[in-house]
């Protein structure tokens, strides 16, 4: 009922662990597979080892979930030794990568390709690092990154992760599609900030962070809607899906698959199973036999 195909990759259901949550170790990806996800995305890796920001790096004040982890990661060379391969797990693995310069994206894509991930996701949109801005905000630069990653990924499909912190997401989506992207991941976290008025300081050590969880959902729906209007390639709709009805909404906006990150915080590591059960229940109640019947339905 929930079987989905994304860029030729068969998924048993459309839920995908979003990059940035839990995707640090291989045994963890495997566990998320056992917990019911259709695919998992690794925490973004770049050309070097990064400790990330000091704590606090995340919190939830009851109205929003904010984080500024600062793209901590063991770096591509350590990861290659640690993971050995990425095609031997029970579910498809999407490798998220980034770089400071355009050529870094290519170097990392080339190295990770050898581990045979099912897909590569280029994270050009982290809101919590300084050099992130130019790539996600400029259609031409986003296209350059896309071409560089494509050039170094062989036959592995490539998705580009876009930012909501722009005024021109349609232009950027169009530019990366034209540059050869096979999919678009929409969206990364929205930039935000929270001050503790007793401490008189921002809570996040990085001061500014990314908003995710339910507070992000309406922005995601709008972005997925906009991107679907603009391009033909599939969309991994990511941001604010907590329940099955959120996932259905995302599909109606045009998403092919559903990224889930902060949902783990709200409902546990088995959130994938829960969301799939809720989606199936909704489909049965509404006599929907396949997600294709409702995908992008609001555009008709």
């Amino acid at each position, binding site marked *: 009922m929930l079987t989905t195909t994304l860029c030729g990759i068969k998924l048993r259901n459309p839920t995908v662990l979003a990059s940035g*949550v*839990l*995707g*640090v*170790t291989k*045994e*963890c990806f*495997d*566990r998320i597979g056992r917990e019911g996800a259709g695919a998992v995305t690794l*925490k973004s890796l770049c050309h070097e*080892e*990064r*400790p*990330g920001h*000091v*704590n*606090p*790096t*995340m*919190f*939830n*004040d*009851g109205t929003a979930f904010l*984080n500024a*982890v600062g793209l*901590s*990661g*063991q*770096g591509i060379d*350590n990861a290659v030794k*640690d993971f050995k391969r990425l095609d031997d797990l029970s579910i498809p693995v999407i490798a998220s990568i980034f770089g400071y310069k355009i050529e870094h994206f290519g170097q990392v894509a080339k190295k990770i390709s050898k581990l045979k991930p099912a897909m590569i996701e280029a994270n050009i949109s982290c809101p919590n690092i300084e050099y992130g801005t130019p790539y996600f905000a400029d259609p031409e630069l986003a296209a350059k990154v896309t071409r560089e990653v494509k050039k170094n990924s062989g036959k592995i499909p490539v998705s580009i992760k876009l930012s909501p912190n722009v005024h021109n997401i349609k232009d950027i989506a169009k530019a990366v599609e034209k540059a050869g992207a096979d999919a678009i991941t929409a969206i990364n976290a929205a930039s935000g900030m929270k001050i*503790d008025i*007793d*401490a*008189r*300081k921002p*809570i996040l*050590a990085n001061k500014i962070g990314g908003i995710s969880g*339910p507070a992000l959902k309406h922005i995601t729906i709008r972005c997925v809607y906009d991107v679907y209007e603009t391009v033909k390639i599939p969309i991994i709709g990511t941001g604010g899906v*907590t329940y099955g009805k959120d996932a259905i909404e995302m599909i109606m906006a045009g998403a092919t698959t559903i990224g889930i990150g*902060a949902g*783990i*915080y*709200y*409902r*546990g*590591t088995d959130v994938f199973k829960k969301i799939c059960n809720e989606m199936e229940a909704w489909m049965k109640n509404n006599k929907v036999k396949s997600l294709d019947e409702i995908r992008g339905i609001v555009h008709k």
Partner: protein
Amino acid sequence: MPCKKDIPKMLEISEIIRESEYHKTLFFKHSLDCKPGQFIMVWIPGIDEKPMAVSYLKKDEFAFTFHSIGKFTHTLAKLKKGDGVGIRGPYGNGFSIKKNACVIGGGVGMTCMSTLIDALKNPMVINGARNKDSLLFHKRYKNMITTTDDGSYGRKGFTTEVLNEQLKNEKIKIDIVYTCGPEIMMKKIVDICRKHKIECEAALERYMSCGFGVCGKCMINDKIICIDGPIFNSKQLNEMPEFGKFTRLKSGKKVSL
């Protein structure tokens, strides 16, 4: 809409006790619904946020005890009564509470054992440290066997030697061993318990960011220490090849312990 909240709450330090050369305890007049073995996240605005065990727990008061060892704990050591720190939690699963217990703390690991000792009925306590200055709570409990690696206080030797002796003594009944301390020590204790077929629970530690099962930094094999642990039983520990051997850096890089 899910109703959850995980955000530091600024609390005033109500009292400070110097426990030893390196250890201090900070008290807060605040009620904390916490089980032995659970932990809190402590935030010094502008500096860092770290997980800490609760070392004293009363109806309207709690405290944590730390060893001054790095930037964060040196800053904590300079704080005065009335200063504020951010507290969130408690997090994690906590120890089971069982009879005929032996509690083994190594160094600052005693902080994690203290509220458990308070909750158990007269457990046997073995408290070990490198030397006299590193010993913690050695005057807080009666009937405690104390060891130091260099013999500067109590018995010269290791906690594991004491445990082996006690297990050989037929007059003493031990059904469960609880431990917190250096992982190499805990690994030895788990191995001894397996040999004697007695239960064991150990409090594990890894670098931690969130404390609520999202960041993925505190993984040991497929377990997330902050939500699946930090307390694991013998069966779980025996199925963790990384236990006692490998840890992960803040970046996620796997390294030998």
